[in-house]
């Protein structure tokens, strides 16, 4: 789909791999040098068949080394999850645990493309069980064709039948049902038509340059078989068309999944089985990894050093700040922060380096030789590398100075706004949802606010009863601090925070921001769209309606055992790993 170098590379890989695997690992040469081991046991090493071929003409640049050279099939991939999936039904719950679970067993129309050289923040949509997508010139209509021959799992009562548009229609119905909590995400779709059993036509109300991202979003459209309405209970059993077949779920113990031999990507997955153990306590997960019982784990901070020390060949990979933390203000007409100088002052009063240090232990990690990136969040989080504008860069313009730590200047601004003696304010956040790093940053900010002269009273709120229902929706007084929902596609940040969205936390109604927010969706050209994002960030910094902070700005890490392959090369953001990366991993 994407006409990029990597898109073409990927298509070639799929074509040649298919041919190889059909012949059982022995066979004719493909477009690029590929080699695969025939049969599967870990200790059966002698069946390697090397087929080195010259790269075809037409590619002047060198291809990267083949990720599947000497790939071994079989074995179990052992992972850990932080909790039980609240429901196995993709539409049963909004929790990321449910969505991540669904991504193993259910397909979407589109998924994210991963592979060597593709940075997880730069992934683009690529067809999953769709085959192609054609936008109309004004991007208001999209015609999607289903890939032929895609089958559901060979499990009763679905029994391996082909996926048709009936199933897509059924799934779309579930996504847009009244009880589905996030159906507002697809409200921009006017209608969906199904002219034949393999064609879908989406008609949109407003143009959306990121429409394929919407189809690839694991929070949204999973394709479920129509049998899930009555013939089996999707909350307890998962039958889809994804790369893994659901085998068992021992509540609070582990989930077992078997590879789907009929997956449309022939030859994959490489592992025979995935075992996801439910281990809620972080220290226990790290302990199990160090003892060799887990293949992949999610370390933070100084555990990276411990892991490196104990397993010197462990593979560590990181990706930049995915979640945006920000300070926001109430919308009352008499509040001090109606004056932009007050907001700018607060931003300048934050020592972002220290906040990063507290949240991410930067200096200790650097001492141990790990390469830590410490970008500053802008109103677009640093993890969105395609659209983020570095607040400290020169392109940032005059707003850049508000990201610098300058308490003296901040005080002057406050005085100029008429609050030389400071003022009282309620400072609220939730501390039982977002983890320790967030809580620490929230706490440290109290100190900076007080140093500026704002006499804060801290109110720590319960996430489910107070924060998410009231504060996050904008019903509060004073100053609030929290995380933004990690949207898979960056455009959503601007629309929610500056558009006519009911969740516009600060009820911001700035015409220029609003215009930019909606304009970027209509802009299909990527360069021009990026310019719109940059302009939004530049302008916003001069107004500081929301103050980006540093929780979520540092890198999140994954550690893998030394014998795991393609863990570092195939990475993706979001929750689609079950389909997008795990089928391609193997153990040496």
């Amino acid at each position, binding site marked *: 789909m994407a006409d990029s170098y990597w898109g073409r590379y990927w298509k070639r890989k799929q074509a040649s791999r298919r041919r190889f695997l059909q012949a059982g690992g022995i066979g004719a040469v493909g477009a690029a040098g590929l080699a695969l081991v025939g049969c599967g046991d870990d200790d059966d090493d002698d069946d390697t068949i090397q087929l080195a071929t010259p790269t075809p003409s037409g590619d002047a640049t060198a291809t990267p080394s083949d990720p599947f050279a000497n790939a071994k099939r079989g074995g179990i991939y052992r992972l850990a999850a932080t*909790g*039980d*999936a*609240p*429901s196995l*039904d993709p539409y*049963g*719950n*909004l*929790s990321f645990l449910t969505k991540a679970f669904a991504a193993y067993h259910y397909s979407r129309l589109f998924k994210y493309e991963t592979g060597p050289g593709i940075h997880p923040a730069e992934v683009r949509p690529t067809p999953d069980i769709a085959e192609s997508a054609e936008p109309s010139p004004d991007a208001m209509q999209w015609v999607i064709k289903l890939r032929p021959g895609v089958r559901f799992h060979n499990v009763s009562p679905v029994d391996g039948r082909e996926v048709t548009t009936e199933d897509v229609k059924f799934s779309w119905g579930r996504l847009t*049902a*009244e*009880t*589905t*909590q*996030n*159906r*507002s*995400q697809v409200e921009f779709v006017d209608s969906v038509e199904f002219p034949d059993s393999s064609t879908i036509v989406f008609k949109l109300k407003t143009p959306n340059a990121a429409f394929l991202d919407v189809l690839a979003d694991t929070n949204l459209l999973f394709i479920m078989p129509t049998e899930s309405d009555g013939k089996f*209970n999707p*909350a*307890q059993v998962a039958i889809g068309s994804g790369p893994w077949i659901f085998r068992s779920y*021992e*509540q*609070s*113990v*582990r989930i077992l999944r078997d590879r789907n031999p009929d997956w449309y990507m022939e030859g994959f997955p490489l592992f025979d089985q995935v075992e996801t*153990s*439910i*281990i*809620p*306590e972080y*220290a*226990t997960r*790290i*302990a*199990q990894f*160090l*003892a*060799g*019982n*887990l293949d992949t784990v999610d370390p933070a901070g100084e555990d990276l050093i*411990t892991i490196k020390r*104990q397993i010197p060949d462990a593979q560590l990979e990181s990706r930049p700040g995915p979640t945006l933390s920000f300070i926001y203000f109430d919308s009352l007409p008499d509040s001090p922060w109606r004056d932009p100088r007050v907001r700018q002052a607060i931003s300048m009063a934050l020592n972002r380096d220290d906040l990063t240090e507290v949240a991410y232990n930067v200096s200790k990690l650097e001492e141990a030789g790990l390469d830590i990136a410490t970008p500053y969040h802008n109103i677009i989080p640093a993890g969105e590398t395609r659209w983020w504008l570095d607040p400290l860069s020169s392109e940032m313009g005059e707003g850049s100075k508000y990201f610098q730590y300058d308490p003296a200047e901040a005080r002057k601004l406050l005085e100029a706004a008429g609050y030389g003696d400071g003022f009282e304010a309620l400072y609220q956040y939730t501390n*039982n949802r977002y983890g320790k790093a967030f809580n620490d940053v929230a706490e440290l900010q109290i100190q900076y606010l007080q140093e500026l002269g704002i006499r804060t009273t801290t109110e720590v709120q*319960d996430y*489910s*009863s*107070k924060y*998410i*229902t009231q504060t*996050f*929706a904008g019903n509060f007084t004073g100053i609030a601090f929290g995380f933004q*929902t990690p949207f898979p596609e960056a455009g959503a940040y601007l629309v929610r925070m500056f558009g006519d*969205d*009911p*969740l516009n936390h600060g009820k911001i109604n700035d015409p220029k921001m609003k215009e930019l927010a909606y304009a970027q969706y209509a802009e299909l050209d990527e360069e021009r769209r990026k310019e719109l994002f940059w302009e939004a960030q530049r302008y916003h910094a001069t107004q500081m309606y929301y103050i980006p902070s540093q929780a979520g700005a540092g890198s999140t890490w994954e550690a893998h055992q030394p014998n795991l392959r393609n863990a570092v090369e195939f990475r993706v953001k979001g929750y689609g790993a079950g389909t997008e990366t795990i089928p391609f991993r193997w153990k040496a």
Partner: protein
Amino acid sequence: MQRYAFRRLILMVPTLLGVTFVVFVMVRAMPGDVIDLLAGDFGAADAEAKEALRKEFSLDDNVVLQYVRWLGNILRFDFGSSIISDRPVLDELQNRLPVTMELGLLAIFFSLLIALPVGIISAVRQDTPADYIGRSLAIGLLAVPGFWVALVAISMASVYFTWGVPPKNYVKFTDDPIGNLKMMWFPALILGAGLSGSVMRFTRSAMLEVLRQDYIRTAWAKGLRERAIIVRHAMRNALIPVVTIVGLQLPVVVGGTVIIETIYSIPGIGRYYISAVNQHDYPVIQAINVLVALVVVFANLGVDLLYSVLDPRIRYS
């Protein structure tokens, strides 16, 4: 005795009814709404979705109606399904309750293993160094928060002695008794150590009281050796109140295993309960409360009856 037991059983009924009522009210009095939680980030401002969800779970009915309906259901052993996960509560309880019970029984076993000898020796050698050391040990064990010991043990094990890392996945006792015990013994020991303090103290004071009885003085006068006196006369009588305290600890353990279960990834009732509380999952919270209340009430009755059997002086009219 039978009449007493019968009377107690009758009195159990209003108690349990009271429990169901209190739980039902408390759970709904908790600030926060399960619907808000289900609606999450995206649905926070979507009133229609919330209404639809409310209807789906019959939460928009009259409260009294909900209570009566729920009560009728549990009398038929229909505990409903979790609002968050749609899994039937009874299934979950059937899987998890035995696990926590096993943990609890093992914990009580360990606590007795520590508390009884220490308590008896402390009493017999009152105010000697043996007494001080023994008591310090038992109180020391209860003075250290169990979860802290567990976390330190796991963290240290992972770095310094990886053979000490507990097994990753829980295996059922019926499937693999050895494997199961391998996983459970250390958490049970931590829990038991915490419990042993109060049992030790109780044993000590019961023993002290018994040792001052006339019949013990007679035994001394007769010239019996110390061990004979302690084992054959004193212990038997001193242990009776201890039995009651142990019986009363079983329900305490059921409630107190949450943290250990979390740290050791044990799929018990404690973890299930706390996540239900965090998510305001009404059917689950209500069901577990009722179940635990049942266990407690029966345990109490059992202990009282046992007490009367063991101590012939106690007779219930």
